[in-house]
């Protein structure tokens, strides 16, 4: 369960933990609660899975990972969960989602692959296709070109929680 204070805490931390000796104290003072309460609540939110990860958020492009491909597949509905779970465990796959098909868009499984070059990404993709016997399924590779905007998800403090 989360409450208004949890949401304020998430809003305070999501812009970045201060890089100072007592960062949780700085946030505690902002919210007028104790340092220990900040730590306890963040620990709990993480245990609950509401915070998926907490730590250093890297810029892949700056670190030499210039090639980013979104690979989309058309996988039959009755096996998409099974294949999605398997692909998500591949080391080179960063994200793996199921989304609805649309008119002119027959794809329902999405994977993100980051690599240092297009060739590396394409080689990794071939490896995945072979390992998981995916060659019968239609797919497309959408490499990213320009990045117009990139920032972490920003949630307003009053967001409704599900």
């Amino acid at each position: 369960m989360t409450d208004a204070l949890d949401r304020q805490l998430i809003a305070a931390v999501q812009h970045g933990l201060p890089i100072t000796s007592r960062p949780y104290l700085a946030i505690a003072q902002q919210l007028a609660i104790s340092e220990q309460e900040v730590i306890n609540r963040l620990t709990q939110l993480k245990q609950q899975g509401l915070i998926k990860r907490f730590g250093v958020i890297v810029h892949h492009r700056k670190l030499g990972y210039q090639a980013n491909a979104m690979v989309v597949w058309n996988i039959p509905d009755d096996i998409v969960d099974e294949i999605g779970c398997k692909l998500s465990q591949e080391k080179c796959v960063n994200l793996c989602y199921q989304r609805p098909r649309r008119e002119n868009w027959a794809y329902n499984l999405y994977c993100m692959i980051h690599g240092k070059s297009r060739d590396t990404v394409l080689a990794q993709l071939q490896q995945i296709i072979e390992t998981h016997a995916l060659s019968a399924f239609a797919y497309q590779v959408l490499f990213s070109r320009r990045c117009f905007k990139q920032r972490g998800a920003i949630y307003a403090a009053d967001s409704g929680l599900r």
Partner: protein
Amino acid sequence: MQLTALHKALLNNYQQDFPLSPTPYLEIATALGVTEAEVLAALTELANQRFISRIGLIIPPNQLGVSCLVAMAIPQAQLQTVANVVSSYSEVNHNYEREHAFNLWFVLIANNQQHLQKVLTEIEQKTGFLTMQLPLIADYFINLGFELELND
């Protein structure tokens, strides 16, 4: 900027489980055999040089509010203009050009479905192009963080 062993350790080892103790940077320093001041300096450098965006948290999609992946097919000559309109919304958190007829891809996050639809309708009206909405059905991701190969 040349990445040192300390920079690399900070980039690779602290993406998922940042210490939740009163002095997390001291805890990291102890684990890496350096001083707290060195850790603070190295992280500040990484942030200033944009190797890291921040020390922050990642919330799974649709836990707080609603999100949706959106694609648009835009003629190349108009792409920058349309992308600017899309990026101007604070609800849009990333916005990329991709190599496909559907060449503009962005993620929208809003407090509720109604607000999300309002933003999409506005984008369609302002740009004159339709949006293709691809909300999440399932998130299969288990392995978190991203292992960087920083040695080559």
